[in-house]
């Protein structure tokens, strides 16, 4: 053990953060040691405060300081459409577009057997009970366009269609302002598949 135990512990815990390798963790740890005690206290407090105050919306699963989030309580939003996403941050991304005016449902991940995430680990039961009791007429599945996201989308559509609710998937296609010539084959192929009527 080269460092004092407290230092080893700090590096060890920092290295658990996403995107932080052992080298970066070490740099961060050294940086923290150069700060004043009150500076370090502010960082630690901010972390704890966020953790204590922020929970999940009982209805949609989005991050929320109250038991039901502002979107779910907003009576101006349309109650017929439900957009299903993997992570809380996806709601933020979609909200920035200001295009979607319906409700959200956050799954908390995607089906990935290799990572130990099965349907039971996601908020799918909650989704189904929302669909059964609510007045939704369309579910927009906005999971990521990768293997896990596609598998999750397929799984959900099989569960939802029998309820007589329309299931749609976010279209994949050409980037706006892009050039056909510079689009990769996969994106172009998907854009062809998902072409729409004029």
């Amino acid at each position, binding site marked *: 053990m080269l460092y004092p*135990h407290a230092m080893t512990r700090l590096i060890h815990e920092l*290295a658990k953060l996403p995107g932080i390798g052992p080298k970066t963790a070490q740099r961060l740890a050294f940086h923290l040691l150069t700060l004043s005690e009150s500076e370090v206290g502010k960082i630690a407090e901010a972390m704890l405060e966020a953790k204590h105050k922020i929970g999940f919306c009982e209805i949609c699963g989005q991050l929320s300081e109250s038991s039901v989030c502002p979107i779910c309580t907003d009576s101006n939003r349309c109650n017929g459409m439900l957009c299903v996403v993997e992570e809380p941050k996806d709601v933020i991304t979609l909200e920035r577009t200001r295009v979607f005016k319906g409700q959200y449902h956050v799954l908390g991940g995607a089906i990935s057997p290799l990572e130990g995430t099965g349907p039971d680990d996601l908020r799918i039961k909650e989704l189904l009970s929302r669909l059964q009791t609510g007045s939704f007429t369309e579910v927009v599945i906005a999971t990521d366009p990768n293997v896990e996201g596609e598998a999750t989308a397929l799984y959900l559509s099989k569960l939802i269609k029998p309820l007589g609710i329309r299931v749609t998937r976010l279209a994949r296609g050409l980037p706006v302002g892009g050039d056909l010539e510079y689009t990769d084959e996969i994106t172009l192929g998907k854009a062809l598949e998902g072409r729409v009527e004029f």
Partner: protein
Amino acid sequence: MNLSCLELKHFRNYNNLIINFSPGMNIFFGQNAQGKTNLLEAVSLLCLGRSFRTRKDSELIQWGSEAAFVRGTFVDNGLEDVIEIGIGEGQKKFKQNGHEVKGTALFSQVPVVSFAPDDLQLIKGGPQLRRDFLDLYLAQLDPAYRVTYYKFYKILQQRNRFLKEVRLVNRELEVWNEQFIDAGLKVICSRIQLIEKIKPYIKAAHEQISLNREALNLDYLSFGSHIIREPDDKKLRELFQNELARVSREEFERKLTLVGPQRDDLRITIGDQIDIRNYGSQGQQRTAALALKLGMIDILKDVREMPPLLLLDDVMSEFDNDRKQALLSLLLSSSQTFLTSTGRSDFPIEASVNTVFYQVIKGAVIHES
């Protein structure tokens, strides 16, 4: 370092399991085919990145499932490390504390030594078992060995493919030979050096448990039963070249590489160079097999500076009561241990903080309180 928590999903006959372990002795009992060995196998997977009983990862996936998932929490000096392994058809994913890592990274984490009734086959069985034994423990003693071996193995596969494809004796083989000899010699030399290192530990362990105090000896056999004790690169290279030239025609006929570390053996003798595989009594063979494993515990402790986890699968019933007591008190005083047995009565000890009993029934584990 010890394993404090294990989580299994779709692993063998476990659908979904979370279980906490004692840092001391963990004893699993239950009837046959309930999932006791499967638990030890999961622990070995977390330590080695592979199962101790099969090389086919897909066997670990619960029948009818897409992938198996194992998560283990190791604790060392108050610090936690979470290892996650996902096994799908033809793919394997490793994570340490949430970051994806290579399987080789796990190898240098937690040493492990396993005991099973099959260990007798280490002595009685074919050379493949002894090579596997050597390779498994050498890789734990020296993580670089695994890389060396893997390089060799890839070239061996290429060379075999070449032999399968060509119809006639072909000069092109010489191109393969050069690389093959280089990589093969590295494996042979690593094995010899490491055998010299483990020898005293295994001898000492054997002396302690054998009744007649006969000396046990290990030798590396290469190139058709040459005993090789010194990793002399020049001499060995010449020998390697000559042997390859000698079997060249036969290799083209049989379409297989016939010389190299993939055909070597570990010769185990007692007393006055008596080959224990062919001439040892059952008792001598059993003792030698046990010494091989006990010696590994001691050397891993020294080299890795931490005691290995011990996995003992169904071995208690083989001992008489005195030996059982002796073994249990040895285990109680050493590192974290995982034992299985069909009978609860195999363990004449009380449950305590450090000794926990679990009953295993059809893929469910019940903590006995």
